């Protein structure tokens, strides 16, 4: 108890450190936990989507087991009952998900039944039926004629019912008695008397598929008897072998979690073997194992990707915790030494700090879970970098695995603070004082870790570079938006390594600077430089933290923007405009040639008059044979447009063209026959403005001549690498050839819906055959779980890193300053004015914080330019048009500058406060340690 009170005192005394440690821990824990939470939630979403897709036919999570006797073997009844019992009772609990009630069916070998009524015995009707029993039958059927079977018949006489349809199919009447011949276990022929006592129909035709194990056809062939009759009389007493048994389960996997997958897969994998061991010839004939493998692969992939994206950020959070712990410990070293010299054993000291860690860890787990939940929601609701939308339901799931991740984070964090304690605890106050006198270079400098890391980063770059070559040459395409995690890890490493290398040079730079300006430097600058170059080591932690956070922030924001922008660009380019409408044209066939159809153009005016539409344009798309100076030049895509209309609707990316796209469109109006051609084609055939090309288009292959007026690399919705394009005036084309249906491109007003357009068009007698809305495509992209995850993680990472560097910065300076109070006191006592002291400290800040922030921004940008181009290798190489561009959003940079500005301001504010509070006598009285 005393130790707890002591701990409380200690924590309270160091409350800012305690609080910030708690904060750091909470951030680390919640960030770590949010990822499995989100991916679990996404898995659920995935599962429910998959389940929805498979509602036709059998449910997705169906498990169907079958026993099929081979030959006329005697049935091992004991084994059979054992198996049945296992499937009924153990299996559902092994699988552990709710299921619909078991459907099972047992049957004996079918027989050609003959009426015992001599009047009918002569009937040539061939009836092959089988005796079967199905537990729970009475729940599912309704007797329409006669009555339900009775359990107990006489020795070789059984009562059976048939499905209503079977009465007509087999010409059976209720009340008939048939002879059923079957061979028993001993090979003797047994004759059963089967009396049809009733007919039934299914309660619910719809779930027939679910409850009749082998389909509805089987029902027609079945003489259903009671299970008791089958078991006791037929199987046991008459020793007639069982021919087949079916068991069917349908599970409800709505609540599946990532952590359930492995054990479920193991159970299902094992099931086949278990069943066969229990009863020979029993198999799983349908299971959802593959679906589970799919789920597992997807969830592992997503989780790995998200973790890889978050890894640098999580590492940074840990670094923050470690830095914080170290600083806090440095402050408490004297205390540790005092405890030691008063007879505290190392174990006690370590236990004290472990206890503190456990307390804080426990708290952070509680808070972290709640915040992690919130973070996971935020990840799910991100629609792009730093933009979050209120999405209706983002399933988040909490499982023990999630908690395990949290625990792992806490353990690592506690380790980060307790391990140094273990080292400190060895030293008594004497050896501690002795150590203070020595300054060792940080271990990463001693072992050249910075250079090693830099080498690793360079080899990472080299790998990406050669990979890109590979995928470019083979044209390998990968899944869209499957971001390579390494592309976030290696840049983080590069920033870190470059930062360390810079820090290695930092003292030398300071010394150099000092040497150069020693003669005319004011005393404050002189002091600053001396202080910095003598104790550069103590500034490293905060400089590394700032460098890394700012650098990563810049890189991540730019990466996210780039991915976002380019995938939007791709889609926008693919569609060309907001909405593309294809209308139905009336046409009639040529009397002589069936392939020629004369179309009548529907009125175009209604499109322009739609309220929702800002602008509309006619876009004709057809292909034709190209002839250049009499020689064939393959196929080409001919586009007919009205240039003014088109300029209003089309989506052009300005940086794709040397001049504004409207300039090209304007060229079309110079000549009626003007055409814009794609640059690869122009290059291939050495075409220049003013040259003539001929295209044979339409069903009749009418030759149309065009004059080249412009050469363009790209055109919305067209891929010149697949087929060269030719942009011409629509009216000219229509004059030359029979009209061909064109697309209508619509530029929509903000937020306008498509459905009313279709309705209004229908009212104006225009029938729409196809509508493609780019906005839907964009929304689909945004809603993709892994894309949401990527942006969510990156956005959160950005926010978290900003937060951490802010807190880290403030704490660092606050405590670094309070540790130097004696120094300030002496300086003041020596006659340094308050203003000069402030200037000195401001200088110091500028040279450390300012420098590392500037460097962070620089390194972040550098890494963006170096590494982001590799992102395009991950997209589909075929649709890598328009070309990739690297984006730095001014908004993000502004946010960054804001955060940094606030940081500096708070830092300066703290400085002023500290200096105002500073009383020389107090500082000097406090003495060396405090």
């Amino acid at each position, binding site marked *: 108890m005393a130790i707890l009170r002591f701990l409380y005192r200690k924590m309270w005394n160091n409350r800012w450190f305690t609080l910030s440690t708690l904060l750091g821990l909470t951030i680390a824990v919640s960030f770590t936990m949010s990822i499995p939470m989100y991916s679990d939630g996404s898995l659920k979403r995935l599962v429910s989507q998959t389940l929805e897709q498979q509602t036709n036919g059998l449910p997705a999570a169906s498990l169907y087991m079958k026993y099929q006797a081979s030959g006329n073997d005697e049935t091992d009844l004991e084994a059979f009952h054992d198996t049945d019992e296992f499937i009924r009772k153990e299996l559902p609990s092994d699988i552990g998900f709710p299921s619909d009630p078991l459907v099972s069916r047992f049957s004996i070998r079918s027989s050609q039944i003959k009426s015992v009524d001599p009047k009918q015995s002569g009937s040539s009707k061939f009836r092959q039926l089988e005796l079967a029993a199905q537990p729970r039958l009475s729940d599912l059927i309704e007797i329409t004629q006669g009555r339900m079977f009775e359990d107990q018949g006489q020795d070789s006489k059984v009562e059976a019912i048939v499905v209503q349809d079977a009465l007509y199919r087999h010409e059976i009447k209720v009340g008939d008695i048939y002879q059923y011949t079957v061979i028993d276990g001993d090979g003797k022929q047994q004759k059963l008397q089967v009396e049809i006592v009733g007919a039934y129909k299914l309660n619910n035709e719809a779930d027939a598929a679910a409850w009749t194990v082998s389909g509805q056809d089987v029902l027609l062939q079945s003489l259903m008897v009671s299970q008791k009759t089958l078991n006791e009389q037929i199987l046991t007493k008459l020793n007639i072998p069982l021919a087949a048994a079916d068991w069917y389960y349908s599970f409800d996997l709505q609540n599946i979690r990532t952590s359930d997958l492995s054990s479920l897969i193991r159970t299902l994998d094992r099931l086949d073997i278990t069943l066969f061991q229990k009863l020979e010839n029993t198999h799983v004939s349908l299971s959802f194992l593959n679906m589970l493998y799919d789920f597992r692969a997807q969830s592992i992939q997503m989780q790995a990707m998200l973790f890889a994206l978050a890894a640098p950020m999580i590492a940074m959070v840990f670094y923050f915790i470690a830095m914080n712990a170290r600083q806090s410990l440095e402050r408490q070293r004297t205390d540790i030494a005092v405890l030691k010299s*008063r007879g505290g054993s190392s174990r006690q000291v370590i236990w004290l700090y472990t206890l503190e860690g456990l307390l804080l860890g426990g708290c952070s787990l509680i808070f972290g879970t709640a915040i992690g939940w919130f973070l996971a929601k935020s990840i799910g609701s991100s629609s792009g970098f730093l933009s979050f939308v209120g999405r209706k339901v983002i399933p988040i799931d909490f499982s023990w695995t999630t908690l395990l991740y949290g625990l792992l984070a806490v353990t690592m964090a506690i380790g980060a603070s307790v391990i140094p304690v273990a080292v400190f605890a060895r030293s008594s106050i004497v050896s501690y004082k002795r150590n203070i006198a020595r300054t060792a270079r940080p271990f990463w400098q001693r072992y050249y870790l910075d250079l090693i890391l830099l080498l690793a980063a360079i080899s990472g770059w080299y790998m990406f570079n050669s990979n890109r070559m590979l995928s470019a040459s083979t044209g390998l395409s990968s899944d869209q938006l499957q971001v390579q995690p390494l592309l976030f890890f290696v840049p983080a490493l590069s920033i870190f390594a470059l930062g360390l290398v810079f820090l290695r040079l930092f003292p030398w730079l300071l010394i150099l600077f000092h040497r150069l300006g020693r003669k005319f430097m004011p005393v404050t600058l002189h002091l600053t430089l001396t202080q910095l170059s003598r104790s550069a080591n103590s500034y490293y932690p905060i400089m590394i933290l700032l460098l890394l956070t700012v650098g990563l922030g810049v890189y991540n924001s730019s990466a996210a923007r780039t991915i976002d922008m380019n995938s939007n660009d791709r889609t926008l380019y693919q569609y060309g405009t907001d909405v593309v409408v294809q209308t139905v044209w009336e046409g009639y066939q040529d009397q002589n040639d069936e392939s020629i159809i004369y179309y009548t153009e529907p009125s175009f005016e209604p499109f322009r008059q739609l309220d929702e539409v800002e602008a509309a344009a006619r876009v004709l798309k057809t292909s034709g044979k190209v002839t250049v100076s009499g020689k064939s030049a393959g196929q080409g895509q001919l586009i007919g447009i009205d240039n003014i209309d088109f300029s209003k609707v089309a989506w052009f990316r300005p940086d794709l063209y040397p001049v504004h796209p409207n300039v090209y469109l304007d060229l079309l109006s110079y000549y009626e026959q003007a055409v814009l051609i794609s640059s690869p084609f122009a290059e291939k055939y050495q075409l220049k403005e003013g040259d003539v090309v001929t295209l044979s288009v339409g069903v009749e292959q009418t030759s149309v001549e065009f004059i080249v007026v412009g050469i363009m690399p790209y055109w919305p919705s067209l891929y010149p690498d697949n087929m060269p394009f030719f942009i011409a005036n629509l009216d000219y084309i229509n004059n030359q050839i029979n009209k061909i249906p064109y697309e209508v491109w619509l530029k929509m007003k903000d937020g306008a819906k498509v459905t009313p357009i279709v309705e209004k068009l229908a009212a104006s007698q225009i029938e729409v055959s196809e509508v493609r809305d780019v906005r839907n495509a964009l929304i689909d992209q945004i809603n993709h779980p892994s894309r949401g995850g990527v942006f969510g993680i990156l956005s959160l990472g950005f926010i978290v890193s900003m937060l951490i560097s802010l807190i880290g910065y403030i704490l660092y300076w606050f405590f670094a300053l309070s540790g130097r109070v004696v120094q300030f006191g002496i300086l003041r006592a020596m006659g340094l004015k308050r203003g000069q002291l402030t200037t000195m400290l401001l200088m110091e800040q500028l040279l450390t914080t300012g420098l590392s922030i500037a460097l962070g921004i620089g390194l972040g940008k550098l890494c963006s330019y170096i590494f982001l181009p590799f992102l395009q290798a991950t997209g589909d190489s075929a649709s890598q048009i328009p070309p990739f561009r690297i984006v730095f959003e001014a908004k993000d940079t502004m946010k960054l500058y804001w955060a940094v500005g606030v940081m500096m301001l708070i830092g300066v504010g703290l400085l002023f406060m500290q200096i105002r509070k500073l009383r020389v006598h107090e500082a000097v009285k406090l003495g060396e340690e405090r």
Partner: protein
Amino acid sequence: MIECEGLVKIYKTDDVEVVALQGLNFTVTEGEMMAIIGNSGSGKSTLLNILGGLDRPSAGNVRVGPWNLLKITDEQLVHYKRKTVGFIWQNNARNLLPYLTALENVETPMMMDGKIDRIYAKELLTWVGLEHRMNNKLQQLSGGEQQRVAIAISLSNRPSLLLADEPTGSVDSQTSDQIMDTFRRLNRELGVTIVIVTHDLSLAQQVDRVIAIRDGLTSSEMIKRNPNLELALSGVGESMIEEQATHEEYAVVDRIGRLQIPKAYLETLGIADKVSLECDGTQITIKAPS
């Protein structure tokens, strides 16, 4: 209580080697109150650190009660610190935890040992005259009061040996007297062996026996002529002559018969590296070689 023979302590850094103690000999008997004086750098603090179990000797023989401090294990050292020795530093930051109250500070060493005896802790604080300050935080106490809390802390584990490193170094003379009084009472009433390290000769005069250390070796020993005069002394401020009068200074002869001659004597006689010795049966005469 303390037996020290040929005690050697060497500090090593990468490029410097400092021999702080080079074969120190001295003994302290149980229940004695004595002082060790010496100039800065003479090795007295090193000696005290070793005696307090905060540092380990490099060679030689140190025994404190039943403990051999050269061969002691880390675990025994913890035990030693808990049961045998109490420590008072000159710098209060090393004595006290500033965020605890005076009482809690006294209880801390008890906590390390596992049992808190609050009554005894209060008794100790009363003993050093701080009964009205028990629940004050340390920042609220004056330097002298802090020093007295430190004494209470050092006594909290009922030590049989009390080591004090410049206990009056940062307090005024009145407080210094108070502290010395406390030490004397401790010594008399509880029978605690007390070793005070100081460079202040006037302080040293207030104890029965003073050992002077020079360059890591015991150089001389001063023993009070008339112990009964002790009470008549009224604090510090007396002249050196008077101090000389209270104590008789002796040179120390070590186990193998070596003798350290004060540098001043050597210089006066111009002795370099050799002397001639003469013994006439009652005294030994040291002469410069002729």
